[in-house]
């Protein structure tokens, strides 16, 4: 009976506690690494946020329209805080991977390798999106100003179209970088963009042929409108 009890219960339990005893230091190491990660991340976030503020990143973002784009997206934090927060989570992620590595589990190790090889793509995708938003705002504003100064009443619509096209282009590049539905996104972008251009061309050709004719005639003849007879300078 006693032998049976030992075989059926005590031995497995002993084995279990032995394995737990061997594994526990790894868990503790992981917890310690992650805890240190949180501390390091907080310090780095604070330092980066302060440095970004001192470098005038918030003012620059205001100038290029990035802050306004964030506000439109419901994000209330300043770009300096966002950059600090981004690095905070990157560091947490890195330390979490180190922590998981401390567990020394073969499946987890493979997963960590995959995550680490993916991080550069993630960083590049985020950079592409940030630059894309900045460029979209810049070109959108430039289009709005040029269209209003040319007295085109649908200026805002035109500017939104340009902004959307640039953002879509940036998104398709970012998704391609992340390897998410690469072919579908590129095809969708190409179809949407090509379709929009074709639709505009047809609409302009059919709906505004007289205006186009008058415009081209004026350009080719280099005639100045009567109302611009006086000199501004």
């Amino acid at each position, binding site marked *: 009976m006693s032998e049976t009890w030992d075989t059926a219960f005590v031995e497995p339990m002993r084995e279990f506690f032995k394995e737990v005893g061997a594994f526990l230091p790894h868990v503790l190491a992981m917890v310690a690494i992650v805890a240190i990660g949180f501390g390091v991340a907080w310090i780095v976030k604070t330092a980066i946020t302060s440095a970004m503020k001192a470098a005038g990143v918030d003012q620059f973002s205001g100038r290029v329209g990035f802050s306004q784009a964030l506000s439109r997206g419901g994000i209330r934090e300043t770009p300096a805080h966002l950059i600090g927060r981004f690095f905070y989570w990157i560091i947490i992620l890195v330390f979490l991977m180190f922590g998981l590595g401390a567990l020394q589990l073969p499946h987890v190790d493979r997963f960590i390798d995959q995550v680490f090889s993916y991080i550069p793509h993630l960083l590049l995708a985020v950079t592409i999106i940030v630059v894309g938003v900045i460029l979209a705002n*810049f070109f959108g504003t*430039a289009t709005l100003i040029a269209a*209003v*100064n040319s007295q085109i009443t649908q200026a805002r619509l035109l500017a939104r179209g340009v902004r959307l096209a640039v953002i879509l282009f940036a998104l398709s590049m970012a998704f391609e970088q992340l390897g998410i539905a690469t072919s579908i996104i590129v095809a969708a972008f190409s179809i949407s963009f090509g379709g929009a251009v074709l639709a505009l061309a047809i609409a302009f050709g059919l709906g505004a042929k007289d205006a186009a004719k008058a415009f081209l005639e004026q350009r080719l003849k*280099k005639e100045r*409108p009567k109302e*611009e007879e*006086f000199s501004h300078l």
Partner: protein
Amino acid sequence: MRRQLDGIGRADILVGIPSYNNAGTIGHVVRAVSAGLAKYFPESKAALVNSDGGSTDGTPDVVARAGVDLQSVLVAHRVNPLHKITTPYHGIPGKGSAFRLMFDIAAALEVKACAVVDSDLRSITPEWIELLLRPVLREGYDYVAPYYLRHKYDGTITNSIVYPLTRALYGKRIRQPIGGEFGFTGDLARYFLSKDVWGTDVARYGIDIWMTTTAIARGSRICQAYLGAKLHDPKDPGADLSAMLVQVVGSLFSLMEEHAALWKGVEKSEPVPLFGFQYDVGLEPVAVNVDRMVEAFTLGVREFAPMWQDVFSPDVLERLRALQGTASGFHIPDELWVRVVFDFALAAHRRIMAREHLLKSLTPLYLGRVASFILETRQSGHREVEEKIEELCRAYEQQKSCLLEQWDRPLNRGASS
């Protein structure tokens, strides 16, 4: 060109004419300059420099062929021949780059006095050359600005922004700070040449205001020469108004940064001596379309208002919104216009948005102000119009203290004024 300059050696006077496709008018300008030099400075060794921007209409050929019958201007002979130099300039296409080449030649020839005149002038006479050069050569002045009679709607950037702002900032009442015709010493030409500004808007339309402001800031002795009527071909018909505003107003704002210490200490303006016999002349009527300008203003205020949240204080934006409508009864008061210009200067100083976007967004407001001015002065004569401009100048001077107060204050988003 260097060989030609070596052949000339040294000269007393240089007259520069920048050009770009001005074959229709430049012949007259060259003849007037040649006659002026022969008549008023026959003993001086002079060079006429045409700095061309790559004209395709034969402008350099017209310059080369243009000659003047000295008998017809009652001049017996010239002691020294007039050296004519026609050369293309390099660098950014624009009037400023053309001037840079002229300064370079002036320095090489070690001239005592320079004059520059536009190539699109139809009303230039030989007397203009005397009036631009004599104060430099005989009266000890360093810089001569022009003073003309112009149509009341002509030179609207000058009348609504450049003259009143320059006067309020630097305290000198130079009526045509960006006139296009100037006289100055060879020493000042060398000083202009030494400045590293030729990659900026100074190389384009910003050159005139830059020269005038630089002369003021250097403490040069400045006077004005009464040249009579200014009639000219429209300034670069292909030029976009927004681009012109960016270049001229952008240069003005950049100069505000550079000379902040100077203009902060200026409290009031003073007259600048004016030479020349003053007389009234009839001026050609010009066509204007006020409705189109008011429409541009209305569209601009409607579409740019969100972008201007950080440029204007809420009350200015509200007042601009309230002005939208038709030309009938449309009026932008002087005090509001001055606040608009000062708020734009502060926005450029604080770099709250891309500079070119900011300055281009001024276009509809400027057109609104022009429309308001035209409506206000439709029945006015020259003197009444000048009085209106004088009132605007006083508004700029009175409100300068607000600009001063805010200049060194950091940006408070949403309430910049």
